[in-house]
């Protein structure tokens, strides 16, 4: 958990009115800026042209199966916790053409690859989002095989993170060790401070590139008082997080709970809609779809996000391996909180709470985890539900 600004680094101040310079320099540098903006009654992520598109003066109220925008009393630009979308959609697009192929006289031929993707600047990533990115990196580029589409996009991003001073009811990053402040993984980290009439950003530099960009913006060294204020906000945020999960024995407990009757109980509420996997910043499953044009002369292969909640997901000839909804919920939860550790050395959950907000049945993953922790399946317990 990181609820303190890095004391060993120089911290800087950029005033609210100078923030447009950040946009200008990044755009001049060829970046496509992606950040939060208001649309369809939610704070979503999209390409931004300027500061004016940020969700000025808005915050979000979240609860189980509930998300509402509410006007703030101030003019904060980043005064919300997190929206339904995650940054993965820019690096790992929801649908992506893997290749196209043309019929030729002697068979068929693969077309050249896609156009080069944009150079992204991600503005407003939260600490949990950065942790999620680290997890996706492990999946897509750290192994023997690299996903070229992801890598191409990932290599050039400029990351401006926002330390959380607003926490949602469903946030539990402190349990997952991923927030509310970002410890690394950013080029610049901002803490938004509104103090009476003063509105400024406390800035930590995380990379040389970050330092260069900051150099182009009007800034000054932060005072002790300003740093104290930033720390105060982060500490308060950490303390405001009430959802807790004891992660220490979690993988072990879950692995012993494969035949726990609780799965069936959860399944009686779970609609297997897969919303949780769509809003999850680390869910990486995908499927492929093949198309041909009407003449059958051109074929394309599309990669699309998939969900372990889909029954076809585990299909092998004859039927699906996981046909019951309890098996599918179990797969999802066990993957995030147990097998991810075997696969990638960490939890597959960063505690952003999106799955709780966007579950139409209001299933609270932390509540379920606590249930398993408090009611472990003893080795001698009868295994039937």
């Amino acid at each position, binding site marked *: 958990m990181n609820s303190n600004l890095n004391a060993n680094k120089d911290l800087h101040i950029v005033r609210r009115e100078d923030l447009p310079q950040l946009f200008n320099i990044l755009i001049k540098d060829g970046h496509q800026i992606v950040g939060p903006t208001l649309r369809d009654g939610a704070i979503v992520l999209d390409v931004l042209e300027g500061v004016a598109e940020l969700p000025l003066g808005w915050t979000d109220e979240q609860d189980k199966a509930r998300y509402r925008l509410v006007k703030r009393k101030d003019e904060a630009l980043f005064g919300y916790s997190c929206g339904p979308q995650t940054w993965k959609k820019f690096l790992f697009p929801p649908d992506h053409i893997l290749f196209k192929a043309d019929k030729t006289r002697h068979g068929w031929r693969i077309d050249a690859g896609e156009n080069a993707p944009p150079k992204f600047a991600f503005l407003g990533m939260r600490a949990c989002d950065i942790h999620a990115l680290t997890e996706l990196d492990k999946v897509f580029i750290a192994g023997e095989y690299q996903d070229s589409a992801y890598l191409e996009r990932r290599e050039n991003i400029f990351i401006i993170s926002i330390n959380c001073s607003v926490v949602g009811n469903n946030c539990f990053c402190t349990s997952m060790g991923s927030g509310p402040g970002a410890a690394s993984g950013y080029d610049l980290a901002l803490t938004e401070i509104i103090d009476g009439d003063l509105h400024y950003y406390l800035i930590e530099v995380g990379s040389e590139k970050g330092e260069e960009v900051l150099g182009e913006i009007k800034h000054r060294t932060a005072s002790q008082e300003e740093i104290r204020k930033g720390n105060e906000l982060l500490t308060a945020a950490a303390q405001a997080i009430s959802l807790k999960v004891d992660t220490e024995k979690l993988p072990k407990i879950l692995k012993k709970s494969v035949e726990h009757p609780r799965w069936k109980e959860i399944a009686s509420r779970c609609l297997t809609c897969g919303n949780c996997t769509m809003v999850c910043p680390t869910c990486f499953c995908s499927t492929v779809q*093949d*198309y041909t044009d009407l003449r059958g002369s051109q074929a394309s292969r599309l990669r699309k996000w998939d969900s372990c909640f889909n029954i076809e997901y585990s299909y092998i000839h004859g039927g699906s391996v996981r046909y019951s909804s309890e098996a599918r919920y179990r797969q999802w939860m066990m993957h995030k909180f147990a097998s991810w550790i075997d696969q990638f050395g960490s939890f597959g959950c960063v505690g952003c709470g999106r799955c709780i907000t966007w579950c139409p049945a209001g299933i609270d993953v932390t509540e379920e985890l606590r249930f398993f922790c408090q009611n472990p399946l003893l080795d001698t317990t009868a295994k039937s539900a």
Partner: protein
Amino acid sequence: MKARHSEPMIPQPFRVAKVQKETFDTFTLQLKSSKGNGVSHFSPGQFNMLYVFGVGEVPISISGDPSNGTLIHTTRVVGNVTKAMGKLKVGDVIGVRGPFGTPWPVENAKGKDVVIVTGGIGLAPLRPALYYFLKHRDEYGKIVLLYGARSKEDILYRRELEQWRARFDLEVHVTVDRGTGNWRGNVGVVTMLIPKAPFDAHNAVSLVCGPEIMMRFTVLELLKRGIPESKIFLSLERNMKCGIGHCGHCQFGPHFTCKDGPVFPYDQIKDLLEKREI
């Protein structure tokens, strides 16, 4: 550092060099690289993702001889893609990605008896291992092949099995679930052949491939004979879309069947095998 593969999702074009019908629902394709080199290096037990233009892609184990690198795949018609694949003719182009996955432990089995227990199409991924053993025959103890099929019409590689049966350095037993017509060989499930198969359980390695339920029963018989859990290897089947551990589909507990498998030592997966819907 491991070798990096930059475009693992793009199929390479191969040409169908030979088509052979094996049984009413299985066929074998021999492939040749479109770029001229017919050689493809693989280890026994690995698989390729085979792509049929516009239809889709499926994981199919490699069934050829690893020493000459000819790409041979035996496939059973079970869905759209395999059906389309079954209609390919000599000269047609097919996309290949791979080879992927873990191999049979042919090196570690040296100096030991080898017991191959297989059923149905499960013989296909084991044929490269058998080729390897026969090529390095002196380096192994007894080699036993126990093969079960549904009926005599469903027996794969029939001519080759006959040749293997005729060898003195190979113990081959074939059994069918239904003894129809003039079949005068064994009838009964393949697990029935294990108790009396000639091998030294304390110095043997067993390679098993077949339907999951058949493998579970096979393991019970092998354990009864005294083969240690760590010396029994199973090849699993799961849904696969990528073959490289990126799509998530093939997960079996903590394992990605495509890259941590398909060949697993039994002791690594036994707890999962007993559970439903993993």
